[in-house]
């Protein structure tokens, strides 16, 4: 069984929200030109989240002062690649920040480049865990889970940040996107649980998850409750008051944090089964 990797939980979830916001801004800009205020708010919040995430990741290291060395094995280490892509994303974010105060440059292409770099960072984060030693992780599921977190929380964060700046159809498309991410997350989990069961370690992971009250809390708070709220709200727009949106974001946020914690805790690796 794995351990509670809090620095990694904070790093992965926050960085994924941050990149989700940037991708969401790009999506909105492609449909209708982004309002200046929304762009500025989105970029600032995304950057703050990214900085907290990067800072949190240092606490996972035994020697954070030597973290700069972690970029030296790009040839085969996904951790090195992850750090490279996050540094590049941060550089892209700096340019977006500059653009948010000097709106003259190429906004959409900058958002596109930063989004691509951020998504490559998220994919690299997930690939770190694709290890033959851990059958529950040795598949495409970590990549899907990490990207879904970005899509789901990024979209909800943008709805909250946007407030009155968002046009009703923009708000609706973001909420539809979040709803889609929840449905895909549930489907992915069922697929994941049924496919990893084929070996002893995978079956142990599934058994751990299904017998853990935290998993059912995660499913109830992070999937079921927001799913119902979004379905009801999308039928009649009036239900979506600011407080309902905050509630949906909080429920999904808690669900994703619990889900990520369980991702680390439930991992059962292949190991020597002998007496010590």
């Amino acid at each position, binding site marked *: 069984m794995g351990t509670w990797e809090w620095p990694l939980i904070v790093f992965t979830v926050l960085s994924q929200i941050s990149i989700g916001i940037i991708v969401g801004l790009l999506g909105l800009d492609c449909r209708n030109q982004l309002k200046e205020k929304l762009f500025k708010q989105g970029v600032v919040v995304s950057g703050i989240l990214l900085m907290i995430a990067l800072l949190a990741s240092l606490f996972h290291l*035994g020697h*954070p002062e030597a973290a700069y060395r972690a970029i030296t094995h790009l040839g085969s*280490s996904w951790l090195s690649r992850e750090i490279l892509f996050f540094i590049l994303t941060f550089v892209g974010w700096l340019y977006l920040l500059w653009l948010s105060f000097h709106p003259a440059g190429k906004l959409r292409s900058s958002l596109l480049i930063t989004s691509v770099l951020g998504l490559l960072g998220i994919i690299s984060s997930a690939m770190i865990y694709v290890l033959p030693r851990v059958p529950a992780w040795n598949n495409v599921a970590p990549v899907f889970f990490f990207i879904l977190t970005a899509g789901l929380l990024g979209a909800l964060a943008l709805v909250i940040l946007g407030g009155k700046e968002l046009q009703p159809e923009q708000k609706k498309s973001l909420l539809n996107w979040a709803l889609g991410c929840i449905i895909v997350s549930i489907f992915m989990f069922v697929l994941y649980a049924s496919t990893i069961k084929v070996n002893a370690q995978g079956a142990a992971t599934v058994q751990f998850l299904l017998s853990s009250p935290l998993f059912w809390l995660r499913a109830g708070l992070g999937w079921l409750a927001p799913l119902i709220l979004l379905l009801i709200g999308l039928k009649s727009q009036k239900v979506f008051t600011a407080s309902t949106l905050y509630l949906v974001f909080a429920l999904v946020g808690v669900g994703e944090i619990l889900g990520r914690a369980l991702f680390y805790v439930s991992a059962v*690796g292949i190991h*020597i089964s002998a*007496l*010590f």
Partner: protein
Amino acid sequence: MTKQLGFLHNSEKCVGCQGCEMACKNEYQTDAAPRWRQVFQLREEDYSLPTRMFFSMACNHCANPECLRVCPVKAYTKREDGIVVHDHDRCIGCRLCLMACPYDRPQFNPAQKKVEKCNLCYQRIDKGEKPACVAACIPEALQLVEINEALDQRMGVLKTLPGLPSPDITQPAIRFIGPKQGKQIRRD
């Protein structure tokens, strides 16, 4: 890489004295917690006769080392003789190698907040000496060998033992002899 050095462990000879573990600790004066070498006892489910059977395992200096692949700081290198060397000074304590090794052989030192492991006493080997664990093994259950086809074709040499992860994951440079299932003779 011109050759692959590794260990040959004979479970028929091993008495589980942990002399190899002690020799390793003595050679490198390691802290109490990390166990670069460790003696294991086979479980009854895997070896069902009423005798205790042991095997001793340190880093397996795998042909396909996962630790080396995942390490972000290039702390691991593989020498021409196949030894996987961990550079303690480069390690930043990310512990990714711990997650990746199916044998749990990189060990985290909580005092130094770094990973450490068996480097197959490469400095002794370079001087023509045996590794400390091999030299200390009284029943000569542990040997330093070159892993090659000739060894694998020898009668009784096994690539794995019951209870060990599949060697297909990392191709470990360790081979085993025995344990043989004994024959029980009753007086009646």
